[in-house]
């Protein structure tokens, strides 16, 4: 989704959101990622108002302290940016699916992940996530996550069918959004 993303070209507008809307967003995020509850006030401070940056294809970025922290497509779920995932790994611990190391180079060039990537010996799918839910894709043998995606096939389906795309790659290490940490 952020393959060709630059702050100058892709961000069409940035606007502050009302505190009521901000509260709604905060509630939605806490609902999706229950482990984030304790630190949500550090990530999305209550005092400064949050900003939403609009990007092509109906994508909006949630910006706090001049950093993009979450993104959303249309009115779907809020996905965390990889920089946030690296810093607060424990908050997203219940959404990690680990792929094998052979898949890394494909993921890092923006490809969606196929089932065999997760049914490998090295791979692990510890949590059963619902379809269209956010998932953090990590790699075997690496400490940091490498991508954030959307589940296309549930865990059992992946194991049974073992063919086709199972996770859509929305945001990966080194893409346009990764390369612009500061949004003014």
């Amino acid at each position, binding site marked *: 989704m952020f393959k060709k993303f630059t702050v100058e070209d892709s961000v069409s507008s940035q606007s502050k959101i009302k505190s009521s809307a901000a509260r709604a967003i905060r509630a939605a995020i806490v609902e999706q990622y229950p482990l984030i509850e*304790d*630190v949500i006030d*550090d990530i999305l401070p209550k005092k400064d108002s949050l900003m939403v940056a609009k990007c092509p294809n109906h994508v909006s970025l949630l910006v706090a302290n001049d950093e993009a922290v979450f993104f959303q497509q249309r009115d779907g779920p809020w996905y965390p940016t990889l920089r946030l995932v690296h810093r*607060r790994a424990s908050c997203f611990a219940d959404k990690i699916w680990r792929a094998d190391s052979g898949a890394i180079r494909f993921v*890092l*060039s923006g490809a969606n992940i196929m089932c065999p990537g997760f049914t490998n010996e090295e791979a692990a799918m510890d949590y059963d996530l619902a379809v269209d839910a956010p998932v953090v894709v990590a790699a075997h043998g*690496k*400490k*940091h996550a490498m991508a954030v995606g959307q589940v296309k096939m549930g865990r059992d389906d992946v194991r049974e069918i073992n063919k086709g795309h199972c996770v859509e790659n929305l945001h990966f290490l080194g*893409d346009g959004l990764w390369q612009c940490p500061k949004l003014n």
Partner: protein
Amino acid sequence: LPQTPYARGQPCLPSARALDRLGATRAQLLAVSAAPSRAKSQPSKERGALAAAPLNAVLPRVGRGRGACTFSRARLSPREYSKRSHARSARDRWRLARRDSKRSLAHHSKKRNLRRRRRAESVGRSPLIAYHAPPRSTAKRCEPSNQYAAARREPDLVAMASYDDALAKMFEDRLTAFYKHYDEAKVASVPTLLAKYKGKEEQLLAAVVKKYGPEPEPDDDDDDDDGDEAATDEEAEAEARGVAPGKDAAPDGDEDLEGEPEAEPESDGEDKVPVYCALGLGLPPEYVEFDPDYDKCAEWIKKHCPHLLTDAGDDGDDDGDGKKKSRKRGGGVVKKKVLAEDKQKVIISKEVRNKKKAVTTVEGLETFGVKLKDAAKVFGKKFAASSSVKGKDTGGEEIVIQGDVIWDLPALLEKEYKIPKAKIWEKEKGGKLTKVR
């Protein structure tokens, strides 16, 4: 104040509230009120007038008519007071008094009085006691010598010279309690800290709370322990999940070396700022092999944080090729193809279509890695002209701009695409190439 003269022998003093509003001290009025008791022999009217006279010297006069009334509802600032004492005539005085009475009805003075009342209450003093100085300037407020104040004061509160002192003491207490709870060694440094952050104590407290944790309740100290346990549990979970050993080796140590862009030094177990390679795409060192600029990144990492490089020991020859392959694939960003430096050249030429219409051509921009379509767009916008990418007869592409923009192009090329003027050539008639000035 009653307008009637004093009852025989009975001094009638203004109430405490009136005193407060009038800004006079009890002492002054006591002295003044002593006067009429001596003049008992005089007829009542004169006595009243006499009593009024010294009072008038002290209190501001308000009044309709002869200005005998000595009661003013509005408090006077020193400036106002002097204005009033210099008022030429009764009429002036009357005018000022009228303005005052109107003003005192205004909203803001009510708010001011409310505020004053609240402030006084918060420090534990009754607002109805006369002060030596007008309450507006808190810095000058001195301890009330009044017996009432002494009675109403709370027994344990040490006599505060001013409101500021009370605040300062509160912060000091809070900070000492805080440090006693978290870090005994720093209790001694509390006074220096307060002196340093004078005026910004709230911010200091907020920062300290952020660093250590919530302020300790004076009753129970259990909260802190629970908080710590929760944090460590989550950390343990995250670590246990398939993390290769040896990767956790002190990223904190390296943060000092690098001077991370993120200036968040506190790692309370939740917020771990990772180390990223400063070159290339800024990937974490373990992923740097997939960076298109792998060579430069590897060098940088060897210099700064060598222990974070993945061990290539296990991988055999396949992976040597695999790495090369992955390097070619890159990290999703297509690297700009920049030709060798000597081959880079941009040629600008102008052709005349009609007698007055010309067309400017730019070719060779792709040698600098510039995308032609985007460049054409930029030119079109800049010159307000139609610009497009056309194929050359010889193969390859060139940008065609309607109109004669030859003069402005080099400057634009230099500014936008950083193409040095030395590499821009102008094609004159007859095919000669000259350097652009």
